């Protein structure tokens, strides 16, 4: 079908800025690329780097929608660039770095640092005061449905799209975003984590946590993994309220 049509020429406008270059300032730059079959923004950006501007900065790792490295604003919307097919977009495509994260340059942002801070703050690991594990013994049992339910929330790739799409995060830089709240929901569900509801309240029962959410739910709209962020935030709120009573 598309084989008989002449290929489109895409206009890719990119918000560029190199913070290491004192003479540079943020500006838009447009590149023209011939579209090919099955073309993704991963292919587009690499083509620009290889044939037009080898200084263009962006991040890809798995290029398969699995690792969460390549989140950026595509026509203003946070998403994973690697799995965005150009055929689903208009000829003129605008790319900008994910807002709210430290800029490394052009489309490359330091989501890793932000997420590391978040994980340290929420202590996103299993808290188990029991004695050391005997690795020779049969593993502890878990209900199959519960394991599936935990995995569902464990699928977050920390791409940062939910933070970039969050109204509260725009105003309060300490807000932990849906990524943080989802993690607390995940550990609260996990019987291996011995933290109590009081402990969780200490972590998220404030305006930087679950009570800061304005329920705009941009997070759920843009989450590339379709995590049930809306229902988990609502659940956490009910749980926290119950805990205060």
């Amino acid at each position: 079908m598309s084989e008989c049509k002449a290929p489109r020429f895409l206009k890719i406008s990119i918000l560029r800025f190199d913070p290491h270059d004192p003479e540079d300032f943020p500006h838009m730059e447009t590149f023209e690329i011939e579209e090919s079959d099955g073309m993704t923004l991963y292919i587009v950006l690499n083509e620009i780097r290889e044939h037009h501007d080898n200084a263009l900065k962006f991040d890809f790792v798995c290029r398969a929608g699995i690792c969460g490295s390549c989140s950026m604003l595509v026509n203003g919307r946070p998403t994973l660039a690697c799995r965005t097919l150009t055929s689903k977009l208009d000829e003129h495509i605008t790319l900008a770095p994910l807002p709210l994260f430290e800029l490394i340059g052009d489309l490359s942002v330091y989501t890793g640092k932000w997420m590391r801070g978040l994980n340290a703050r929420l202590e996103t690991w299993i808290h188990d005061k029991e004695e050391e594990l005997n690795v020779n013994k049969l593993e502890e049992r878990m209900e199959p449905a519960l394991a599936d339910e935990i995995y569902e929330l464990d699928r977050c790739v920390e791409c940062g799209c939910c933070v970039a799409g969050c109204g509260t995060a725009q105003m309060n830089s300490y807000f932990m975003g849906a990524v943080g709240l989802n993690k607390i929901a995940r550990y609260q569900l996990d019987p291996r984590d011995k933290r109590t509801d009081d402990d969780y309240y200490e972590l998220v029962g404030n305006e930087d946590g679950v009570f800061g959410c304005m329920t705009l739910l941009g997070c759920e709209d843009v989450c590339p993994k379709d995590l049930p962020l809306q229902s988990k935030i609502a659940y956490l709120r009910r749980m926290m309220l119950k805990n205060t009573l």
Partner: protein
Amino acid sequence: MKVIYTDVLIIGGGLAGLRVATGIKERGHDAVVLSLVPPKRSHSAAAQGGMQASLANCKMGEGDNEDVHFSDTIKGSDWGADQEVARMFVHCAPKAIRELAHWGVPWSRVHRGDHAAIINAEKVTITEKDEAHGLITARDFGGTKKWRTCYTSDGTGHSMLFAMDNKAKQEKVEVHERLEAISLIHENGRCYGAVARNLMSGELVAYVSKATTVATGGYGRIYSVSTNAIICQGIGQAIALETGVATLGNMEAIQFHPTAIVPVGILTTEGCRGDGGLLLDKDGYRFMPDYEPDKKELASRDVVSRRMTEHMRKGKGVKSRYGDHLWLDITILGREHIEKNLREVKEICENFLGIDPAVDWIPVRPTQHYSMGGIRTKYTGESQTLKGLYSCGEAACWDMHGFNRLGGNSVSETVVSGMLVSEYISDYLDSDESHLSIHTANVEKFVRIEQEKLDALLSKENGEDAYVLRRAMEEIMMNKVGIFRNGDDLQKAVDELEELHKRSKNIEVFRSKSRAANPALVNAYRTQKMIKVALTVAYGALLRTESRGAHSREDYPERDDANWLKRTITSWPDENQSIPTVSYEEIDISKMELPPGFRGYGKDLTKHHPDTKKREDVVNAIKEKLEEEGGDRFEVQNCLMPYIDKLPKKYRGTNERLGENV
């Protein structure tokens, strides 16, 4: 000059590197991890299908144990593996998975009672035992006698990596992100750390350490199409090679995975076939039973990839503008199963192909996937020739995979080897041998050399374009060092790569001259390193005049134990030489628990070694005698090939299973 001192420098923040770091911290030592990317974005996250561990919880895993896992692994390796290392591995895999369960991986669990499954294109009902309810379950994978591959849907690597990274955070492991090791600091046969480049600021930093561990994964990106993440460029192997002292093992052993999507080469997990998916040709015909009537789609990966290629060569491939492909049909598994157990596959199909795998067939073909070769180590993970340098995971040739790795054994190796190597390193740190004795002037010299190389790349005029050289290298590897190999093509590949290597000394970084974050500069120095790694692969493949595992020579179709039961060892002692130095390490049949035999695929073309028969007789006599005396399987094993003393004491215990040792 900025110098950072630590006990152990770990290069690479994937599963293997993080597991080493965690073990080191637990033993009270200090560790710094260098990672190109945030650790949770490492390529480990892309492992979909699962982790092999012989837990024997599910019905189809009943009767599984270390012995069966061992035998599958050795047969899979085409007898190229180190059998002691494979024994250490199968013994510790159940421990590693139980540890990960404790650290939070939500492994899929056994549900008591009936469930439907597809086996050999037929719907069957499997009944799980009551007493197994809630224990970790497993799925079928290629080349295994039992269902042994434990999983979380098809996001196993993701869940493991997240749990591992969280554990590392809990242990306060220091991670230096976006730092790339570009050379190893060494002197008098001892490694003292690395020179690293900050990919954001461009700053060079010397990391000086008592022990250094390379856990940078494989080198798949020397091929133009690979399932590997784009950071799997073999830089870890390259910096080891560039010491001139450390050696690489079996670099020509490259695995092609049967089912990557066309054209982009993204993987769809072996779990698709493990769960009952079929391979079909252009006529919708299921061809694998014609070639491998016994294991069919679930033959070992190397075998399936070759059969698919053969079938396409017969004109049975589906024509496309990107070349021929075949179909992977998982529609028979049903939507519910796909949406629960093959979610990543479904997302990949939707996003990259625009199809629904519950309704449509998936276009696939064999694609570069795994590097069995790597930094050659002893069983402790330490380089055989450069003291203080360690390596584990895909980066290493430890060597438990020989010439073909079984699906599900890679993520398993990362955590098992990480767990063991961290203990051996800690023992080393506890000994007097580990003290540092390098003059800071020498450290500075290593930094200066790297700075000069970078300066040369930036200031060069009328030089070569790194992209042109790199694309040429990728095409050579793809077309001449692929699934089927032959002497003529391999000779051409070596000659052409040698030429590229010479040209790569003259690379110029065009236009972009920044010393800070500069992708052009990064591409320039990595291309130089990648070409060297590509040469070790192509040259090793040219010299190995036999077919073993994934290394398949059309001009030498037989496995030749008489002449080639040995590991290829590659080094680069003089930086002015233009091809690597190759030597060989004999594999001793007289010490094998499982003497060389027939893998059971196609026709047996093996040229046997004269020692094989002798060893078989010895093995059979020992087995007979002990069985007569009522010895159990552990006693028999210990008599054939003792290995348990090599393990750290804390990991020597016997594994519990339902109905065994409980």
